[in-house]
C-alpha cells in the first residue's frame, strides 16, 4: 500500500490527512490519474513529492516512499 499525505485545501476536500492506495508501485502520472478518478481532485496544478523532493511525472513511487501531494504553495 502507498500512503499519500494531503495538505491545505486537498486535506479539506478529501477529508483525510493521508490517502491510501492498494498498489505497491506506480508512476507519479499514474498516481495522479488514480487520485483524480477517485477523489475528483484537480491534478493539473499538483506536484507530487517523493521523500520530500519534487518528483517528475515519470518517477516511480513504491510502498516504502514518503509521498505527498503539493498544491501550489503560498508561503512567505
Amino acid at each position, binding site marked *: 500500500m502507498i500512503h499519500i499525505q494531503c495538505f491545505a485545501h486537498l486535506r479539506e476536500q478529501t477529508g483525510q490527512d493521508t490517502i491510501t492506495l492498494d498498489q505497491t508501485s506506480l508512476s507519479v502520472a499514474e498516481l495522479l490519474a488514480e487520485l483524480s478518478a477517485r477523489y475528483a481532485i484537480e491534478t493539473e496544478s499538483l506536484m507530487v*513529492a517523493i521523500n520530500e523532493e519534487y518528483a517528475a511525472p515519470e518517477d516511480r513511487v513504491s510502498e516504502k516512499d514518503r509521498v505527498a501531494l503539493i498544491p501550489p504553495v503560498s*508561503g512567505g
Partner: protein
Amino acid sequence: MYRITSQPIEVEEVTKKVIRPEAGAVVNFIGTVREFTKGKKTLSLQYEAYPEMAEKQLKKIGDEIKENWPDAVTAITHRTGKLAISDIAVVIAVSTPHRKDAYLANEYAIERIKQIVPIWKKEYWEDGEEWIGDQLEKTPYSNGEPGEVKPS
C-alpha cells in the same frame, strides 16, 4: 538555520545565527500579516506546512544562495498556525562581507520561498475563508516543476 515553527518568531534570534566576523552587512526580511489586500480586509491567516519537506526546501534555497553569492550565510524561519494582523510569518537573515550581496540574496530567498517551499496560507475574511495558492489564484506548475528564478 532553516526552521518551521508554530511559535512566535524572534527576529533577533534568527539574525544572530548569521552574524560573524567576516560579515559587514546583515539584511533581515520580516514578512508580516497585512490587513488589506486589494481593498479586502483580512481578519487573520493560517499557515500550514509540510514541515520535513519545507525545511529541506529552505536549506535548498540557502544552498542556491551559496552558489550565487559564495560569501553569504542565510538563516530562515517560517511560522505556521493561526496568525493575527501584523504577526510575523517569516524572517530571513542574510549576512555578507558587503551590503549589496546581502540585499540581493535576501530578495532571492523570499522569491524562492514563494515558489518551492511547501507552505500554504488560508485567509479568513469577514465574509468567508479560502486557501490561497489554488489554480484560481496562482499560475499552475504546467511545466511539471516549480519555476526557477535567476538572481538579478
